[in-house]
C-alpha cells in the first residue's frame, strides 16, 4: 500500500513537471496540443475507491490549471475522464480477478485493451477541455479537429511513455 502511494506520488510529480515545463511549450499550431499528464489518472490502481479517484482527478486537473491559468478547465475535463474511466473499467474488466492492487497499464492489460482505453479516456478529456476552452458552438468544427489531433498526439506520447517504463512488468 505504502509503495503504491509513493510510486503514484513520484509519478504525479514527474508527469506534472513534464506537462507544465516541457509539453506546455510543445504544440502544432494550436491544433494539436499534448496533455500527457492524464496518464497519472489513467494508471491509478484498479482498486481505488470512486470518491478518491474523483478527488485525485479533480486535484490533478486543478494543479495543471494553476500552471496554465485556466482554473477549473482541466479539473472539469479530468472529472469527466474519471467518470469515463469508471464506466469503461466496469464494462471491460472483472475487478475480482486481480490481487495485489494492479494498475491498468500497458504491461499488465495488454496492448489492444490499453490503446483502446487510452484513446477513449483521452478523447473524453480533450473533448471537454477544448469545448469548454472555446466555450461556443459556432466553431465546433475547428474544436473537433483540435480534439482529434490533440488526442492522437497525447495517445502517442502515452504509448511511448508506457513502452519505455512499464514494458518489463509483464504479468
Amino acid at each position: 500500500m505504502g509503495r503504491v502511494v509513493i510510486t503514484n506520488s513520484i509519478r504525479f510529480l514527474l508527469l506534472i513537471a513534464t506537462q507544465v515545463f516541457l509539453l506546455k511549450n510543445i504544440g502544432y499550431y494550436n491544433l494539436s496540443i499534448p496533455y500527457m499528464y492524464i496518464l497519472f489518472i489513467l494508471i491509478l490502481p484498479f482498486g481505488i475507491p470512486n470518491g478518491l479517484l474523483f478527488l485525485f482527478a479533480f486535484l490533478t486537473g486543478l494543479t495543471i490549471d494553476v500552471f496554465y491559468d485556466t482554473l477549473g478547465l482541466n479539473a472539469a475535463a479530468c472529472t469527466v475522464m474519471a467518470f469515463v474511466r469508471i464506466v469503461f473499467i466496469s464494462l471491460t474488466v472483472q475487478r475480482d480477478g486481480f490481487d495485489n492492487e494492479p494498475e491498468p497499464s500497458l504491461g499488465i492489460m495488454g496492448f489492444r485493451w490499453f490503446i483502446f482505453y487510452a484513446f477513449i479516456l483521452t478523447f473524453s478529456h480533450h473533448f471537454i477541455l477544448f469545448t469548454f476552452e472555446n466555450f461556443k458552438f459556432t466553431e465546433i468544427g475547428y474544436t473537433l479537429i483540435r480534439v482529434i489531433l490533440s488526442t492522437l498526439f497525447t495517445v502517442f506520447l502515452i504509448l511511448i511513455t508506457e513502452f519505455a517504463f512499464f514494458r518489463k512488468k509483464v504479468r
Partner: protein
Amino acid sequence: MRNLWLFISKYNAFFLLIIFFTISLILLIKNNSYQRASVWNSSNQLIGRSYERVNEISSYLTLGKTNDSLAAENAKLRNQLATSFKSDSIKQITVRDTTLKQQYTYTVARVINNSVHQKNNYLTINRGTKHGIAKGMGVTSAKGIVGIVLNVNENFATIRSLLHTETKVSANVNGNIGSLVWGDGNYDPRFAYLKDIQSHLIIKKGARVVTSEFSLFPEGTNIGYVAETRAKDGDSSLDIKVKLDTDFATLQYVYVINNLLSAEQLSLEAQNKVE
C-alpha cells in the same frame, strides 16, 4: 431513506461526477473572464433569441389584425393626401344679361384631362351632374370659348373641344355672322376658320371675333381675332383664319355656362319638329 442511500452509493460515480464537475465549472466560470463573459453573453443571447422566436410565432397569430390595422392606417393616410381631395366647392357667378334678359350661370371647373393634337379633341373636367352640369352646355375659359359639354356623369364631364371637326360655333365679326370651324385640313390648335362670311365684305386683320346670339354661348363671348383673310376664287364666301384667344394647350380652369332658358327654348323648338 435507506433505499435512497443505496441508490446513491450504487451510482456513486455519477453523483461524484456531478459534484466535481459542478465545482470545476463554477471555478472555470468564476475565475476566467472569457468563459464568464461567454456565459452571460450566451444566456442573454439565448433569452433574446427565444423571445424573438416566440415573438415571430405570435406575430403570425396576430397577422390578420396587423394587416387590418395597417390597411386602416393606409386608408387614413391616403385620405390625408392632398391628391385625394377633390375640391367640391363651387363658385357660381351669375350674370344678368340685361340686353337679352337671359340668365346664365357659370360653374368653375378644373380641366383634368386635355388633348390638342388629335383630329378630334376632348377635355375632361371635374364637374358632373352633381354640380349641375348637363349635356350641351357651353364651356369657356377666362379668355374665350372652349367647347360644348358632351357627356356627363355624377362627378365628371367630357367636353367636345372647339378643336373638333364637328364643333361649329356661330360667330360674329363686325356684325357679320359666320360659322367657326376647326379641322378639315387645319389641325393647328391655335387657329380656327370662320366660314360663310360673304366675300364682298371687307374683314380687316385684327378684327374681334365673338359669339353670335345664335350660339349657346352668351352673345359676345370672345373667340379670337382675325389673323388672315383670303378670298377664294369662284367662291362666294371668305376664308378667314381666326387666331383663338383660348390657349387650349395650357387650359387649367374653365367655366361651364348654364343657360337657364335653354330648356324652355329647346322644348319650344322641339314642338316645331313634331308638327
